[in-house]
């Protein structure tokens, strides 16, 4: 029982990452009808916003300490971050420590900006082109974006820790009446789960309760008619693209402490997020979120030793197997609409 609770927690946590990425991808699919292979790259750029901010905060001036030596036998260069000098070592240190949560603020305008530039500069010209062309151009863009990040940050993962206050793990077991140490869960992963719930809720509320959201939803359903009504749907779609980019970016920012960011993390998630979106059903936001959580939980269950001993290698293929079964039993995924991306 405790093992199952543990894996449900794991699954929800993995699922929240999948759901966040898939949500942004579906927004772009649904509103603009564009297959965006660069969406993983946006997730990766988000994570690198966190890396960049913590690097900026740790920009240091150098002093030479003649009493110590470096590996070549030269006098040691000691680095002191400017923030330590400006705000005092204590506040400076805590500023660096809280770099990841701080970069949420830092990343939103950046991601929205990148989204705007991408949509106005490139994607806009591809609305009427074939999906194949969209795939080629966004895939090219994804490669360019990740190579740029590689050029500046290197190929090696860059450790970007959570604030000290949020490291360590929480003993759920005691809370639920199990023995100590049976169900423990890292604080930061709990933070991630609640954070993504908040973002998902925010996006839904925005689409549900604002006029802007209503128009966008109408546009998703029937773009032409909305255009005929004299509403400038294009501008709204640009904003939607910006929001989708920001959602992907936020997913990336908060993911940085879970796994050290590297330049190819977007590609690692790309295929998976497409599977999630399609399993959820094209054009359905609730579907994408539900599929994200479903696949996350099933993946976690498949990695349990009891399951693996029964079906060796099941954790290697579970996501794809589930995708096949769902698509064969439900022709348009969990909640897909008819006619979206079926040609």
């Amino acid at each position, binding site marked *: 029982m*405790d*093992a199952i609770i*543990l*894996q449900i*927690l*794991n*699954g929800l*946590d*993995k699922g929240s*990452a999948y759901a966040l990425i898939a949500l942004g991808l579906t927004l772009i699919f649904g509103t603009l009808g564009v297959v965006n292979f660069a969406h993983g790259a946006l997730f990766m750029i988000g994570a690198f916003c966190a890396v960049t901010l913590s690097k900026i905060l740790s920009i240091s001036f150098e002093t030479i300490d003649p009493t*110590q030596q*470096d*590996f*070549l036998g030269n006098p*040691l260069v000691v680095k002191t971050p400017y923030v330590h000098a400006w705000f005092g070592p204590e506040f400076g240190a805590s500023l660096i420590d809280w770099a990841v949560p701080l970069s949420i603020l830092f990343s939103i305008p950046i991601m929205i900006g990148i989204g705007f530039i991408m949509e106005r500069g490139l994607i806009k010209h591809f609305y009427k082109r074939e999906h194949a062309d969209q795939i080629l151009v966004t895939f090219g863009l994804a490669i360019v974006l990740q190579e740029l990040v*590689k050029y500046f940050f*290197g*190929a*090696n*993962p*860059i*450790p970007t*820790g959570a604030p000290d206050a949020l*490291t*360590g*793990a929480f003993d759920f077991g005691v809370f639920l009446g199990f023995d100590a*140490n*049976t169900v*423990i*869960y*890292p604080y*930061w*992963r709990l933070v991630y789960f609640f954070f993504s719930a908040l973002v998902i809720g925010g996006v839904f509320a925005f689409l549900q309760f604002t006029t802007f959201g209503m128009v966008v939803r109408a546009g998703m359903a029937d773009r032409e008619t909305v255009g005929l009504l004299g509403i400038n749907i294009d501008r709204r779609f640009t904003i939607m693209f910006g929001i989708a980019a920001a959602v992907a970016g936020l997913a990336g920012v908060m993911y940085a402490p*879970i*796994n*050290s960011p*590297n330049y*190819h*993390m977007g590609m*690692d*998630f790309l295929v998976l997020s497409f599977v999630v979106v399609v399993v959820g059903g094209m054009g359905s936001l609730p579907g994408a979120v539900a599929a994200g959580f479903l696949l996350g939980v099933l*993946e*976690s269950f498949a*990695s*349990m*030793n009891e399951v*693996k001993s029964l079906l060796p*290698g099941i*954790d*290697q293929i579970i996501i794809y197997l589930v995708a096949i079964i769902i698509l064969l039993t439900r022709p348009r995924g969990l909640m897909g609409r008819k006619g979206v991306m079926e040609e």
Partner: protein
Amino acid sequence: MSKTTMTRRGVLKTGAVAGAGVALPTIFTASSAAAYTNEPTGSTVKFGFNVPQTGPYADEGMDELRAQELAVEHINGMGDGGALNTFSSKALGGDGVLGKKVEFVTGDTQTKSDAARASAKSMIEKDGVVMINGGSSSGVAVAVQGLCQEAGIIFMAGLTHSNDTTGKDRKANGFRHFFNAYMSAAALAPVLSKEYGTDRRAYHLTADYTWGWTQQESIAAATEAMGWETVNNVLTPLAATDFSSYIAPVLNSGADVLVLNHYGGNMVNSLTNAIQFGLRDKVVNGKQFEIVVPLYSELMAAGAGENIKGVYGSMNWNWQLQDEGTKAFVQSFGKKYGRPPSNSAQTCYAQTLLYADAVARAGSFNPCAVAEALEGFEFDGLGNGPTLYRADDHQCFKDVLVMKGRDNPTNEYDTLEVVEKTPVDQVTYAADHAMFGGAEASLGTCNPGA
């Protein structure tokens, strides 16, 4: 319109073929004229450096490339000579190899067997290299080694840690300076039992591919011989990025040590996840919970950041060693690039020098002569102390380093400390050891190609 162009092209083509046909008897170089593949005829000789330049191991590949470039400089007599000054063999005079200046070509393995072989083939077929060196995974090493065997040139492996490279997949034309999974385990086990006691229960997470399996098999055998119990061994997909669902059940299993048989990105993530779950803060069976990473590298340590503090692992070599060969190499490398070399860089540097030296001693670039010169070669002064290139399986035998994540690193390169140098006798095994293909494994015969 297009019709005319075509005809003209056709005519040109016919002309060329006819011209070639007339000249045929004189200008066809009979391929049997060369004694061996890519025999260098001019004043230069080409080495091929095949390293990952894209993909997750790109930084490791870059570091290998730096070291290889440095080795070529030293062979050609430029720079300060580096470890050539401390190398026990003095066959190289700093004027290239056998009077030929060394040039090199580079390629990208992408850490994929297919791409690595494509790149190596272009070096052999187009650039005419006599030796290929580099790489950062065992799958690639085995694939390229097989290719060099077929083509008839020498393969000097870079970073490859699987037992198979000099085990069941050993080849007469292939040589490995790097250590292997068995040696890691043999070096680590005594230190682990000294530090953590002989009554421990270990839980293994193992990357689900060939290297992971040989690593797990080796370390489980070595620790079990010390009295440890292996509670469980769970295979994890190579593509996994989030290891939480594999880490979460560890605490409940009654294990008090977690062994992560992962490399590269897998290791960085699994270790980070294990620390997130607070495993090292726990007390299980009345003992402090510990984590072991059998194979370390500087880049992985950098990627895992603070999480490696106090975690044990093993390495082929480290820049902090104090022998003369290491100091000479680190000085030379540090001056040129402003950073200490990684252990994959060192193995590529040593391999390039060893090849050049073997050619000089053999007096020929013929791969069979070079192989003979390398087989059973004993040397010193390249780091790690006295080393033997064993003739039976082309594996180097030398001391192995047991490392620990440093608690208070003073700079970004100072992430690991050398805990112990396990002497070579403790890590030596029989050439027909069961983990190395048993009695059936054979080098085959040397192939000079052509």
